[in-house]
């Protein structure tokens, strides 16, 4: 199990996936986007600045390049409809922080990262950009970013064949179904998670 689990630390992997340098794939808007976004991110990650400063610099970059709100709504699934507008608003604020926190957590672990874009294929959700990530002393990781929307943003990420947002949706819907579908309870749990985050 644990070997399998180790292949599937998807949140963590997103950070690694995003740390892209110059790619070599056939240029198209999606691969250009990934190269540009990843180039900015990798320059921050691989710098010698303290982690806290890296986090501060990375936050706005993620917020402008990852469709955090779209992913948040997807993760709530059918419970989005049953939530009150106030609950929705609160949830979006919390999700933004949860996602950004989780990603930035991982950044310290992936210094000296390099990557190359190996190609892209169209999918119903957007252009799927394949990338190989190389971390010093670690096996190469194969990841895919789904780029969609206008302007282009990251709408999902696949690591080891599993969709990040689908895993997150499973996590939340399971929590909600065990708590009577109460989005307020989910918000409280997310707040608790953020407060305990270190």
């Amino acid at each position, binding site marked *: *199990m*644990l*070997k*399998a*689990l*180790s*292949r*599937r*630390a*998807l*949140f*963590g992997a997103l950070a690694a996936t995003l740390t892209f340098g110059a790619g070599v794939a056939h240029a198209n808007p999606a691969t250009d986007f990934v190269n540009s976004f990843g180039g900015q991110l990798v320059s921050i990650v691989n710098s010698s600045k303290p982690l806290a400063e890296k986090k501060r610099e990375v936050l706005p970059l993620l917020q402008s390049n990852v469709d955090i709100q779209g992913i948040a709504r997807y993760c709530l699934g*059918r419970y989005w409809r049953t939530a009150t507008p106030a609950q929705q608003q609160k949830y979006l604020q919390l999700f933004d922080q*949860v996602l950004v926190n*989780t990603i930035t*957590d*991982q950044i310290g*672990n992936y210094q000296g990262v390099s990557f190359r874009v190996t190609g892209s294929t169209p999918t119903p959700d957007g252009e799927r950009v394949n990338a190989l990530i190389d971390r010093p002393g670690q096996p190469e990781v194969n990841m895919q970013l789904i780029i969609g929307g206008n302007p282009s943003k990251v709408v999902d990420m696949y690591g*080891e*064949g*599993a*969709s990040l947002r*689908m*895993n*997150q*949706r*499973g*996590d*939340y*819907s*399971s*929590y909600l*179904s*065990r708590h009577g579908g109460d989005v307020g309870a*989910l918000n409280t*749990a*997310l707040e608790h*998670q953020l407060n305990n*985050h270190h």
Partner: protein
Amino acid sequence: MDSRQDRIGKKATRSRRSRAIAGVLALLTLGACGSLRNPPPKDPDDLADYKAANDPYEPLNRKMYNVQMWAYHVALRPVAKAWVWAVPKPVRHSISNINETWREPAVFFSDVGAGKPRRAGDSFMRFTINMSAGVAGFFDVASLVGYKQHETDPGMTMGTWGVPSGPYLFIPFVGPSNFRDGAGYAIGQALTPINYVPRGYGLLTFNWAYNILGTVDGFANSVDQIDHLEQDSLDPYSYVRSAWQQNRQSQIDAMQNDHRATTPDWYN
């Protein structure tokens, strides 16, 4: 001499038989646990979630997951941390090489069963090279000469044949699985040569060491990820279930789409 070998052979057969019986009993017990099965919900949205999760035995599986995580926190995690602290990286690397190499026969037969000659050839060459030039599997020489490691197990092979997965199962110390892959795991064990080594005292000790070290090493590589999973999920059980099911399906799809020629890359 002959009678001694006969005795040892019988012992090994008995041991295999007892494990098979234990496995069958476990599955039968599972099937009999009617009260541990969630009935399909009436609400259409709930029913859609229920079907997507493919986990009718969720109450039982959650109990098994809790057992696993209890063992993880009280024993496996501290042991794994100590292991990483005490054992140099090259030694840990060699242990994971041995585990991979000695699993290759099961990988080979699974590749053959799936009708994937290139993959089967790769696993055959990996076993041959690593058992000889790699000193019984201590060193992964095969990767250096172009035969990269890949995983195939009988559950994946059955998946390529179109055998349905059956409901999700969480088996303590085996991990996420389902009915098909649980059966595949048992077949995989039967295809692993170390399980057929005659049970002399020295070899028995070695076999235990091999299994325990392999397990500890596997945990050691995963502690950080498990800790993150527990910290970042509201319901780690369902996160693992979703990730594992998707990962499993993608492995089967990747194998089905592997139409590489049997000649090596350098020849083409």
